């Protein structure tokens, strides 16, 4: 469960997030859709506690991100904007390291890592060093690292960016499965098709503000447009940066 109220953040003269409010419920896939530079990544970074909001508040499972960042970090699994790997560690070692940093150890950790290897279909790369992994393989390792502690809330920043069709499908399957298990999933994307294919609720962000929020049907109804694509263009006011 994620709640965001009136978040505001500026870097020097640039206002990255003007005023963002939305909520993401458990068992629901919430999509943060907006063109490049709309403030999606900054909003997520405030949620995963690496950036302090100037104003407003954000809560994860009722815990304030500014007041108890450690507790928030325990409650979330994040695929951040930068998702670099350690080239000299194997896929399995990446997941294990993240698990240990979350306080897991011993047989419990090994079992969880095995589960993830299974879930993300990483058997052939599990014991290979990350050096030379393809984009899709790197994404799997980054996801395993994000999910190793079994977080209730999952934040994914542009999870399908740079992936081929097969890897994109694998990520979609994973997101649906997490939803079925009752997780709260918040993911950002600038690709409309991506959001349309997966999301139960859509939060459209442009120029640091939420310009529309609702189910795909609600959005269509509100804008009076037939297709989702036209609905988006109409709420954002431009189609720039929205198309793949």
């Amino acid at each position, binding site marked *: 469960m994620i709640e965001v109220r009136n978040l505001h953040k500026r*870097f020097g003269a640039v206002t990255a997030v003007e005023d963002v409010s939305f909520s993401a419920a458990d068992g629901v896939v919430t999509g943060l859709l907006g063109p490049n530079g709309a403030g999606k990544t900054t909003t997520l970074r405030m949620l*995963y*506690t*690496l*950036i*302090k909001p100037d104003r407003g508040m954000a809560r994860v499972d009722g815990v304030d991100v500014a007041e108890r960042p*450690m*507790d928030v*970090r*325990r409650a*979330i699994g*994040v695929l*951040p*904007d*930068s*998702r*670099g*790997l*350690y*080239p*000299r*560690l194997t896929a399995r*070692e990446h997941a294990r*390291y*993240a698990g*240990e*940093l*979350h*306080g897991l150890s011993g047989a419990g950790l090994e079992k969880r890592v095995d589960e993830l290897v299974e879930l993300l279909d990483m058997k052939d790369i599990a014991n290979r*060093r990350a050096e030379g992994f393809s984009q899709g393989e790197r994404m799997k390792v*980054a996801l395993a*690292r*994000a999910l190793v502690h079994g977080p209730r809330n999952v934040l994914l920043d542009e999870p399908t960016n740079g992936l081929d069709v097969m890897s994109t499908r694998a990520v979609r399957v994973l997101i649906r499965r997490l939803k079925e298990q009752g997780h709260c999933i918040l993911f950002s994307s600038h690709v409309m098709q991506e959001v349309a294919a997966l999301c139960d609720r859509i939060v459209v962000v442009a120029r640091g503000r939420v310009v529309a929020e609702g189910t795909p049907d609600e959005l269509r109804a509100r804008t009076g447009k037939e297709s989702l694509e036209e609905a988006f263009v109409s709420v954002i006011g431009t189609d720039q940066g929205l198309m793949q």
Partner: protein
Amino acid sequence: MRRLIATVFRKEMKDHLRDRRSVMSALFGPLIGPLVFAVMFTLMASWFREGKPLEVPVVGREHAPSLMAFLQRHGATLTEAPADYEARIEAGKLDAVLIVPADYGKDFTEGRTAAVQLVVDNSRNQARSTIRRLRALLEGYSGMLASQRLWVRGVSPELALPVRVDEVDLATPERMAANVLNMIPLFLVFAAFMGGMNVAIDTMAGERERGSLEPLLINPVQRGALVMGKWLTTVVLAGVAVAVCMASFLLVVHRVPLQDLGVKARFDVPAVLGMLAAVVPLTFFASAGQMLVSTYARSFKEAQTYLQLLLLLPMLPGMVLALSPVQSQPWMYAIPVFSQQLLVGEVMRGQAVGAMPFLLGLAGCAAAAALCLRLTTRLLGEERIIFGRS
């Protein structure tokens, strides 16, 4: 907290032991000093050998018994020259051959200038010092006879010698050896800085550059624990470098004839332990300082540039010590880098230092390291550091 530090430390050790560059810079980087040292001492030992008896092959010894006696009195070993001496000199097997012609004795007794021949090959540098010494001996003999002849005639020999040149050679092997020995503290300090340098760069600037810093910081781990784990890894590799450097210096030192060179230096077990006790605390500060710089740097490359400049830091006290030898004051032992060079030098020369300088050195390094680690931890909380600046 302790468990998380251990987790980070284990991961970083595993990661960097797989990194050839990190391992090489810890194992082979510190060999540079001992190598230079070995070469210098081998060179000096060969200069030293020049102080060995001068060997002079002579043709016609019987023609000049008093000259031969003079040469022998002044340390020359006379031998019979082989028949093919000219070829041998050209081939570089002989440095010089002295020829006393048959009419030497006749000219000598009649008071005329008697000639001897010195057969040499002046194009050969190696023979130069033998030739110079032999020539000096011959001129000495000639000068002695000239003085005697003037005395006999009631003239003071000083009239014939308005100016006398005395050469004072400072480049004695002893002095050079002592200078070279002073490199040991400098290179031990270098090892403390070089051993962990690559780890410090990779673990901070590298972590951000490859995009793994952001995921790492999202874990529920105090920044301080991350910094400590990474710092311990750097310290271990720097410590390995110091140990390798010390061990290879020992190997070299035991192979060169220090005593023959008149150098008094201690390399027994207590002295070696003392040197290690002096230098190991420096790895605490060196690693922490390098991590701070590496965290602040915008990129891997930039960190590399800064840290290579930082390597010049150990040179400064070394130069001060070389230009004006200082009388060590207690406060000097509290200054990292300077303290270690003073201490190692004193331990090596066998001076009784006591425990206080060691404790001061440790305290100075620990305080400087703590400050650097604090600043690094604080930097890791800053958005512009986490996400990089352009």
